[in-house]
């Protein structure tokens, strides 16, 4: 069984790392949680009863650790990208840093699709934690509702409720904010950053390569969210062509939000 565990852990560790990063927004916490998940799995492997798959069991351990993580518990606001953009613009070191990453890192490319995944991670942190976990498990990591009930130890009704409300809230937030799918949307960060990192590109041409943006006027909102989640499914935030850049954005946003929490508690 130990050998099976090691094999399964190796096979799902990329997904697990991405999942935890998207919940905590912290590379350090992600590494700690993934490591602790492995240690717990090894020490408790004899309690594994085969009532679920090993992968489900591993994700259950990791999800419980993530739920205990303070950074995961802190919830952000829907306008997180506005707040963090203002902080970045006010910080004279921010753009030199990111341009340095772009110039020197082999994973420093700016791609709109990667920024869409970064953005979804940020927005998902404005949902209640259980909703965020449910929508990730179901829509990004392909777990079934009955598997999520085992991972989170909650009823099928609650999983369905969390999924439904998470989707409804995300649709509403992106519809109000995302200029890729709504001309009235207030957030143009994709095009703005693409202009900074890829000044020779024509944003409209690049935008039209993305199905979600291309069909936005015709597509129903549920379908647009599915297309957005499909983009997220296809991108590993640690392995992608622009992962260093997007992780830098994510850690920046986390630190900005943490400073806000500290100030509000003072």
């Amino acid at each position, binding site marked *: 069984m130990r050998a099976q565990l090691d094999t399964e852990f190796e096979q799902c560790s990329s997904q697990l790392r991405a999942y935890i990063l998207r919940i905590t927004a912290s590379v350090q916490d992600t590494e700690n949680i993934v490591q602790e998940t492995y240690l717990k799995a090894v020490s408790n492997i004899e309690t594994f009863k085969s009532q679920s798959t090993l992968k489900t069991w591993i994700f259950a351990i990791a999800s419980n650790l993530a739920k205990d993580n303070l950074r995961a518990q802190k919830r952000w606001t829907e306008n997180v990208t506005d707040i963090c953009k203002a902080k970045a613009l006010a910080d004279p070191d921010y753009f030199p840093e990111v341009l340095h990453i772009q110039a020197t890192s082999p994973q420093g490319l700016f791609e709109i699709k990667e920024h869409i995944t970064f953005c979804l991670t940020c927005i998902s942190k404005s949902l209640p934690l259980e909703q965020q976990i449910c929508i990730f498990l179901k829509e990004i990591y392909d777990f079934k509702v009955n598997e999520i009930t085992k991972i989170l130890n909650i009823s099928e*009704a*609650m999983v*369905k*409720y969390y999924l439904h409300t998470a989707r*409804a809230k995300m649709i509403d937030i992106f519809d109000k904010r995302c200029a890729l799918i709504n001309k009235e949307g207030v957030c143009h960060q994709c095009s703005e950053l693409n202009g900074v990192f890829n000044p020779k590109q024509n944003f409209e041409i690049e935008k039209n390569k993305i199905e979600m943006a291309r069909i936005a006027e015709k597509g129903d909102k549920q379908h647009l969210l599915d297309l957005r989640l499909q983009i997220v499914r296809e991108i590993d935030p640690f392995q992608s062509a622009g992962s260093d850049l997007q992780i830098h954005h994510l850690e920046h946003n986390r630190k900005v939000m943490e400073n806000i929490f500290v100030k509000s508690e003072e």
Partner: protein
Amino acid sequence: MLMATSTFSMAQNGKAITVKKTFSRETSVSIDIKADAAIVWTLLTNAADFPRWNSTILSIEGDIKQGEKIKLKSTLDPKRAFKLIVKEFEPEIKLSWGDGKGTRTYTISKNGKETVTFSMTEKIGGLMFPMYAKYIPPFDKSFEQFAADLKKEAETIYNAKN
């Protein structure tokens, strides 16, 4: 005993009924919902989520739990925040909240494997009721909308893909 003679047993299929008496007024609605009781209960007890699915509620602040105080704003009287206390809280069975003038009660009855009957009744009254009765708007349409919204939302969640 109250139930046997009240509007509670008469209101069915999403149509509200109001019975007016000298010192009280009681409005009820009842509707069958194809969903399990847990989903209906979850929708009725998540305060902050109400305005998303329920077009008759503008906001509910507080925790819907036994003995807790909540602040409710409804479309019936948008400028007024009703300060209420959760009086009964039996998971997946019965919930009630109210103030000194009235009580609203929600019940969920299981009808077999896949359907529940949701009922809602509000009784307002007291010795002073005749003096302020004319200032209280009718509840019927709002009750029917509440029941219809709950049915739609609960069935959508219940029918979601597994």
